[in-house]
């Protein structure tokens, strides 16, 4: 159990999607102006990553990986180059399905963060989660934990950044730094802080 927990912490803090892997920065910066929208985005990210990474893992292992068609008489078939299209298709389908289910059965939740769902189809962090899962050869359980963990890590980071930016809206910044410039500097400072988590894993 502690192994799962430490892997979860690794995905959430050490391999933090926006701050150390530079994934999903476009939405990370664009949606962090308000804390409410940042929280909604964070929750949506966690759900979509938690669903798509293990699903993509199954698709990859059963249909795409080298030798996956061995039972059908094609042991040399290697479809892994098609993984990209399969992943994107599955992510788009999941997002669409999730949005329809939420709209039908949980209208309140849909109103709260449903607007962020369509954005997530083309979010680098979502696709990146699946691609890292393939590159690092995670098992099914690991990829589920990795998906959830990196979603939570993204949520924590985006909410923190939005809180800092809300404070800074009272500050008198140099004109050139306003908006995007200061967001980058803040992200850099947060990334510096998250870099210290990398030391933690060494002792885990």
């Amino acid at each position, binding site marked *: 159990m502690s192994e799962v927990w430490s892997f979860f912490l690794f995905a959430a803090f050490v391999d933090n999607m926006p701050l150390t892997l*530079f994934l999903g920065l476009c939405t990370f910066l664009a949606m962090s102006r308000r804390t409410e929208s940042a929280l909604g985005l964070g929750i949506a990210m966690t759900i979509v990553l938690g669903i798509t990474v293990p699903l993509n893992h199954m698709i990859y292992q059963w249909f795409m990986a080298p030798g996956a068609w061995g039972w059908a008489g094609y042991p040399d078939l290697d479809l892994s180059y098609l993984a990209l299209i399969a992943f994107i298709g599955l992510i788009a389908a999941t997002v669409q399905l999730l949005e329809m289910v939420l709209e039908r059965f949980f209208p309140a939740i849909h109103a709260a963060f449903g607007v962020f769902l369509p954005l997530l189809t083309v979010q680098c962090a979502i696709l*990146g989660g699946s691609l890292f899962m393939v590159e690092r050869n995670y098992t099914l359980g690991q990829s589920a934990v990795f998906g959830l963990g990196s979603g939570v890590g993204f949520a924590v980071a985006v909410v923190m950044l939005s809180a800092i930016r809300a404070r800074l809206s*009272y500050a008198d910044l140099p004109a050139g730094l306003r908006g995007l410039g200061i967001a980058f500097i803040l992200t850099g400072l947060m990334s510096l802080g998250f870099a210290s988590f990398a030391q933690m894993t060494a002792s885990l």
Partner: protein
Amino acid sequence: MAERVSYWSTLTEPLIKQNPVTLQILGICSALAVTTTMATALTMSVSLTVVITLGAGIISVIRRHIPDTIRLIVQIVIIASLVIVIDQFLQAYFADISRALSVYVWLITTNCLVLGRTETYARFHGPLPSMVDAFGNGLGYSLVLIVLGGIRELFGKGELFGAQVLPLADEGGWFTPLSLMLLAPSAFFLLGGLVWALRSVRSEQVEPPDHTPPETEPAK
């Protein structure tokens, strides 16, 4: 063809005036991740420019045949196919760089810049202007990547394209590498500084302080 002037401005506008990375917040993810050395930055720039130019061309050619409701999926599949081709090419001929770029080549698919251009420009214009526009945006993106990659490699390792430029202190020279330059935070600081510098020169790019809550305004 009286549009020569406008083609030229379509091509050059995204370089500095409408730069996709520093002004439109598009495609930042990869811009930061691959800029630890010049070689990876350059490879990424070329890959992205090829994908975005061809993608815009193809989507523009079939723009009247794509049903509006499924256009995103169609565009993504076209872009993903191009990315797969580029990735296979890199693996075949530049295996080392391909390994260094790891998943970031594949992530060109979801690079907001590519989809942003096809969605806002190529969908409404003919193939030639679309490709010129996409090429210009690719160049604007490349410019930022190469500047960042150059700074980070030069100060992080004292090298450019893997060749020693500044003599290292360990080997009898005077330069002590700043290893922070190779880590994630410095990429954010550098890009923030770049945005600041650019906006100091071109003050029309400065954002209005729109995120200030209106009720705090009269306090001054």
